[in-house]
């Protein structure tokens, strides 16, 4: 952090970040939604979504990133994702078993809307993983920023 007036890195980094961050987020969402027909899934996609916010934070400083997704909001989103996943699991009791894939019609294979609960679970997991990892990152970075530990040495 060379100049305190303008947080974040240099202009070049900021411009490139502005171009790429949306694409990274979009790629993460793509990976999540296609988890059941191609490699990827909720975890990988969730981490990519978290990384896009981390990218924003590294390039522009914490204010910009936290305006997009505050720590409290991340924490709430994470809990919501967890509850969503647990409720999908508990809804399996409708068919008689915990964690039952309760959709009778599994849809046409190789299409986006297929495989019953698997895409839904992927979405819940990605929500939880993305928000959770971002919360971890924010907690660690904010702490070392405020308490005199040199966060990085440029």
């Amino acid at each position, binding site marked *: 952090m060379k100049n305190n007036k303008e947080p974040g890195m240099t202009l070049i980094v900021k411009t490139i970040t502005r171009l790429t961050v949306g694409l990274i987020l979009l790629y993460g969402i793509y990976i999540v939604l296609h988890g059941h027909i*191609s*490699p990827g*899934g909720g*975890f990988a996609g969730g981490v990519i979504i978290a990384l896009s916010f981390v990218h924003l934070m590294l390039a522009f400083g914490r204010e910009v990133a936290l305006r997009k997704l505050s720590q409290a909001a991340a924490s709430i989103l994470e809990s919501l994702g967890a509850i969503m996943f647990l409720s999908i699991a508990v809804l399996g009791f409708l068919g008689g078993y915990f964690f039952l894939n309760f959709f009778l019609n599994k849809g046409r294979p190789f299409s986006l809307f297929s495989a019953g609960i698997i895409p839904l679970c992927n979405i819940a997991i990605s929500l939880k993983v993305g928000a959770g*990892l971002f919360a971890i990152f924010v*907690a660690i970075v904010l*702490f070392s920023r405020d308490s*005199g*530990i040199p966060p990085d040495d440029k």
Partner: protein
Amino acid sequence: MSVYFLCLILFCIGLYCVLRKRNIIKIIIGLGIIEYAVNLFFVLIGYRAGGRAPILAKDQVVLNMVDPIPQALVLTAIVIGLATTALMVAIAIRIYEKFGTFDITKIRKLRG
């Protein structure tokens, strides 16, 4: 067989790092290497010579696929490793804030 053995050597490098290094970050790195080695071992035992990735393609008969179970398990193990690392880094940062050092021999002395 030689592949398994190389994988266990990686495991032992991590073990050596955890047992012998006195720096907190180095210990976390050693644990990371151990996790990599175990995950790698799990995937190695599921590999099938000349096999295909366990993803079905249209109009294709399933003949020879690698074992999908270890892959599913390792996916879980990777995330567990990430969780452990994150928690330990958090503890390490707090320790640095309280003691001003990453060296565990010094930390022990400071504790008195």
